[in-house]
């Protein structure tokens, strides 16, 4: 019997070692050789959408650094969930990665989706932050958020506030703030930020939260900013209070690169370096400016922290608004 066990043990070792060796050497080889073929960045929006524009611009510098083509693939569908599920189920070899912006957290919290923000992904790096803010027309009688809220409280159901979607990262905090400040608005849900802008200028709504306004409306004086939906002040608007200052909660919409869970560390590092190089490119920074965002580098760990933080804040917003899906 002892002899038999011995044999078996030997067999186990003799087979295990080569296998382990192959696995590790294979891993090492793939990490060292990375990237050996083109890298694909999946974005959840149709061609021409904001994320596509950003990644097209970024992919050029990335391919220069990595020495391999980086291509952007648009996979719209299921209201972004198709792409996010695709990324989650891709092979964790670093060749299939994807765009993320924090809207995916709210989508996860409110609907049935095929991914889990904490379990499904490797967070490669945070690249930008949107300058989300609440804006009103420049001829509006309110100059501060306090005045706006004060007026709203005294005139319930008079102010019309537009939203570019039902539960997004720039929508939930504002709806929550209204609840917290005990004000009643007429809430009008539009399809996109562009539609909100049109409605604001056409005097069909009085205010709306969005990122693009900074670029399109505030600069030429057609609108003014009342509240920054960010953690630190928006560049150029130091006196506008942030959501954090007013309500003590974090409102943040950031964007970056993710991949399926368990991408080997060295590959994450390499991709991260490429992202950091890409952020320095003036052309990329100009692209960000156009979509109402600023560069904000976050390494793998920090970015994951941001996501966890946003997750707990969004959970609170949606819970108080009664929009949280059970068990989330």
């Amino acid at each position: 019997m002892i002899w038999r066990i011995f044999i078996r043990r030997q067999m186990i070792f003799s087979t295990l070692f080569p296998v382990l060796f192959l696995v590790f050497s294979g891993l090492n080889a793939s990490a060292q050789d990375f990237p050996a073929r083109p890298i694909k960045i999946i974005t959840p929006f149709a061609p021409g959408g904001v994320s596509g524009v950003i990644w097209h611009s970024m992919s050029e510098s990335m391919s220069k650094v990595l020495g391999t083509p980086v291509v952007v693939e648009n996979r719209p569908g299921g209201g972004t969930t198709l792409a996010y599920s695709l990324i989650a189920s891709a092979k964790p070899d670093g060749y299939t990665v994807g765009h993320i912006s924090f809207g995916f957290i709210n989508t996860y919290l409110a609907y049935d989706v095929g991914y889990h923000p904490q379990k499904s992904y490797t967070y490669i790096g945070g690249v930008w932050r949107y300058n989300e803010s609440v804006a009103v027309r420049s001829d509006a009688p309110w100059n501060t958020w306090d005045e706006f809220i004060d007026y709203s409280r005294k005139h319930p159901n008079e102010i019309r506030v537009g939203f570019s979607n039902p539960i997004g990262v720039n929508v939930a905090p504002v709806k929550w703030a209204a609840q917290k400040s005990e004000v009643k608005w007429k809430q009008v849900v539009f399809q996109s930020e562009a539609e909100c802008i049109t409605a604001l200028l056409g005097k069909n709504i009085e205010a709306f939260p969005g990122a693009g306004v900074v670029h399109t409306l505030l600069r030429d004086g057609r609108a003014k900013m009342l509240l920054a939906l960010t953690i630190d002040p928006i560049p150029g608007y130091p006196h506008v209070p942030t959501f954090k200052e007013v309500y003590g909660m974090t409102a943040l919409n950031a964007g970056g690169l993710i991949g399926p869970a368990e991408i080997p560390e060295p590959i994450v590092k390499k991709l991260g370096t490429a992202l950091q190089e890409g952020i320095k490119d003036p052309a990329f920074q100009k692209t960000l400016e156009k979509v109402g965002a600023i560069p904000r580098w976050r390494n793998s760990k920090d970015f994951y922290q941001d996501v966890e933080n946003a997750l707990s804040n969004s959970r609170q917003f949606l819970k108080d608004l009664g929009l949280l899906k059970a068990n989330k």
Partner: protein
Amino acid sequence: MPINLFFCFLGVLIGTLVGVLPGVGPVAAMALLLPATFHISPVSAIIMLAGIYYGAMYGGSTTSILVNIPGEAASVITCLDGYQMARKGRAGPALGMSAFGSFIAGTAGVLILMLVAHPMAEFVLKFGPPEYFSVMVLGLTVLIYLAHESRIKAFIMACFGLILSFIGIDVLTGQHRLNLGWMELADGVGLVPLIMGIFGISEVLINMEHMVKQEIYETKISGLFPSKKDWADSKWPILRGTLLGFFLGLLPGGGPAIASFASYAIEKKISRHPEKFGTGIIEGVAGPESANNSATAGGFIPLFLIGIPTNGILAMLFSALLIHGMQPGPLLLKEHPDIFWGTIMSMYIGNIMLLVLNLPLIGMWVKILKIPYQILFPLILFFCLIGSYSINNNAVDVIIMLIFGLVGYFMRKFHYEGAPLILAFLLGPMLERSFIQSLNMSGGTYKIFFERSVSAVTMVVALSVVLSALIPSFRKRGSKK
């Protein structure tokens, strides 16, 4: 920019070609080429697609006159007098007048467009959800009212289109609905696969059944330039056609096909010799051909400035604008002046290109008509399959297209029009959204649609259109008793 000139040329060339070929219309062609435009600049893409639109209006008339087969819907009426002229040996002047008439009307349409764009954009900016809702209601009502065959059938098709448009994500709450548990349908049915199915695949199926006889009327085309008398006869029809066409182009549900029919009807009514219409007189060609071209220009106003496409072709341009990251609407003029004025300029140049292109190339177009359908139709089918797949690289779109190909086939068999379906499908989400938004704004009362002047007037017009359609049928029923 030379590159845009090239795409303009490419657009009008393809447009003329699909206008000539009876199997493919401009809608299917634009649907096919839409994915290809992802890789060029938005301005070039819109210029090319717009070129296909007005190019097809030119091309369609060529086959109407020479072969009595209308290349596309807007040229149907041209068959009446155009073909008769050809049989009388006057194919040349008929083709010539149709080209000149189109050119004059197209140019005039562009000029009017340039004049009204800015004031119009200012006016439309005041449009809120209630106005959008009323304008779309009016559009769908007029579309059904003007139906070629039966209003009831058009109404059924519009309802079918609306139901299809509800598939996907609820606009207000974000909940999934009507997708039968199919995640692929979460974004609803795609416009391009739907159009390709209903207009492309069904065309192939119908033609396989018919085995169209390809008889080209062999006629000598001599002297394309119309005579002095022709000009004298045509100048007023061209002018009337231009104005009428532009106006009908503005209306949701209007568009080139209806403009050409209306122009022919008016010319016949006010003519001193209405009995001669249909025997091959030049007024019957000049009026409708002008009207369909200026209607094309007119249609750009609601598309660019209001953000409401008024027919299937403009719907394709609408989704092209969205795909390239532009929101059609009153702010387009301000935010993307290059797109707006670039397209307008290209239309101006495109009209000149078409004139130059069409006069000498008519012989070639006739030759293309001789391509046997055994080759042509498999090719169309092939391109439809590739085209629908390449939009999202998704096989579901191909399946959707094939299903609607069958649906479209039966629709044709039973004389149901595709246009109300497509337009209702397209306007459906906007209609629903503006309705809910209006009610959000009003706090739940329907009064908002009648409190605001533009909306109230539009609603009253829509209601009177419905009444004027219903009253005659009530009377008929009454007289039967």
